[in-house]
């Protein structure tokens, strides 16, 4: 049994977010032949519109209403709720992003609907849609289904395959009525470094107390840059003020599931492990051969990260340039 699915897609730095493509692919599975409707608020660049049509959206509602150019809860909630009602969506998907985390609970509450956040898996069983999500920051998992109402879900980046399915997408200009905005965004300060978002990064190079200081993180950044990844940290490194809390990975902090996680000078406390143990491949670099992180690592090097990481950066450069030549 198919369901009409609405996906709120997001653009970041002029590009459609990877997790939005993943959400479109999940929509193909859930819709099962029913209509797939994408929404894009505050942007209508032709490039983005044509990209969305590659991933199975039958209709794309765009709105360049001025109050949607910067995300605010009130404006986006009003627009999304009006759109859901207008198209009669039965399932609403978005990324578990800054926007998704803020908007999905508000919009679902307004519609009296349930919401399953931070999903890493989806399946259809006897006409029910069941979402899988980590609990206790990945120390366990749960499967959740819906009893009634519209199905809202936010999807964690990097956990769903992107499936191309080019269709003719009908573009609809959407004009929501937006009023009574209660919050005003005064300014947005870009602090996130390196340009690769930690929660969506395919490679995460992470440092703990062993990094010894803010400068030590530059060593890790160099490796992350070569691999197109982002830099993360353990709570120990954040508490020691070597880096910003926004980089913290763990039970309090971000939970990441990259393809490759390189833990540098991280001992492997249970709280940190909870935030990264579901990474596909884990590499540990630590001076202490007894460090618990080695129990979890696919590959380990016992050594000083200040020696190992620069060598690894050079070696990865070589491997990548050889690969570029041979392809």
């Amino acid at each position, binding site marked *: 049994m198919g369901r009409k699915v609405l996906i709120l897609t997001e653009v970041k730095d002029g590009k459609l977010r990877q997790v939005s493509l993943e959400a479109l692919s999940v929509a193909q599975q859930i819709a099962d032949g029913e209509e797939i409707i994408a929404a894009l608020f505050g942007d209508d660049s032709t490039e983005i519109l044509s990209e969305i049509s590659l991933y199975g959206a039958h209709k794309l509602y765009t709105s360049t209403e001025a109050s949607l150019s910067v995300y605010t*809860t009130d404006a986006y909630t009003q627009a999304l709720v009006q759109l859901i009602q207008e198209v009669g969506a039965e399932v609403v998907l978005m990324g578990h992003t*800054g926007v998704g*985390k*803020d908007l999905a*609970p*508000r919009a679902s*509450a307004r519609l*009296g*609907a*349930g919401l399953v*956040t*931070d999903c890493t898996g989806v399946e259809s069983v006897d006409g029910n849609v069941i979402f899988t999500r980590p*609990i*206790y*920051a*990945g*120390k*366990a*998992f*749960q*499967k*959740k289904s819906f*009893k*009634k109402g519209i199905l809202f879900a936010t999807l964690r980046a990097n956990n769903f395959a992107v499936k191309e399915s080019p269709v003719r997408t009908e573009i609809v200009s959407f004009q929501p009525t937006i009023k009574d905005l*209660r*919050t*005003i*965004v*005064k300014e947005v300060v870009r*602090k996130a470094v390196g340009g690769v*978002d*930690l929660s969506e990064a395919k490679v995460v190079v992470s440092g703990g107390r062993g990094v010894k200081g803010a400068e030590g993180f530059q060593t890790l950044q160099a490796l992350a840059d070569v*691999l197109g990844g982002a830099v993360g940290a353990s709570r120990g490194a*954040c508490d020691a003020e070597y880096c*910003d*809390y*926004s980089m913290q990975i763990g*039970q*309090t902090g971000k*939970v990441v599931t990259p393809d*490759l996680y390189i833990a540098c000078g991280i001992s492997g406390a*249970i*709280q940190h492990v909870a935030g990264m*143990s579901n990474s*596909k*491949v*884990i*590499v540990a670099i630590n001076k202490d051969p007894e460090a618990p992180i*080695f*129990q*979890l690592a*696919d*590959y380990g*090097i016992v*050594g000083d990260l200040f020696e190992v990481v620069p060598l*690894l950066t050079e*070696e*990865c450069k070589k*491997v*990548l340039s050889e690969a570029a030549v041979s392809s």
Partner: protein
Amino acid sequence: MNILVLTKQTFDTEEKVSIQNGRISEEGVEFVINPYDEYAIEEAVRVKEKNGGEVTVLTVGPSRSENALRTALAMGADKAVRIEPGVGEYDEFSVAKWLAAAIRNRPFDLILGGNMAVDSGSGQVAVRVAEELDIAHVTSITKLVLVDRKAAVERDVEGDLEMIEVSLPVLVTAQQGLNEPRYPSLPGIMKAKKMPLEIISIADLGLSEEESQSRTMVVDQYLPVKKQAGRILQGDLNQQVYELAQLLRTEAKVV
């Protein structure tokens, strides 16, 4: 100023998780205030210390969660309310309905909550409460400055910083970096032990069963597959690094 704080008692983050009969086992587990809620309580107490007023902490949970409320009282909260959820299954939708119903008849200017609970990781309840009460919310805040009836708020958005202005009443959720929660003082702990707690049953809230019936349900809970211990590379360091880069390229295929 009337300040409310939404809290939850969660597993200590050092606890291992085990499952018995499809449920998370609580046997022998150490419980704490959800770490993000500690920031919320601390901020509430600071706002009170600066502006005067009263801090009330609320939780939905079994009687064991009164320990978390006592800790909040010892940190400087004035009143504590526990909503007894009973035995049936419930979700974020239900909890938000209950909290909102318990709040509706109280005066409030500011509501604080944690960014998410470290057990469910859901991050929904506080925002849903704001919607139920028809007030604005700002999630994931790292700074809060109140001037008259306005709040200047900084929020963390994927590592970037957003500066927001909003009028009271407002609900905000606390992110790391907001403050450094204080340890309860010994006199505070002694005093908190004797303070009365208000206990509310779902029936007291005057909602129909239909109004707070959960929208979602858990169909299964399980532990992740245990990873096999991997390979510690051997030999000269240069050789190890060379081998690692090759393995990541050819065996793991992640570079």
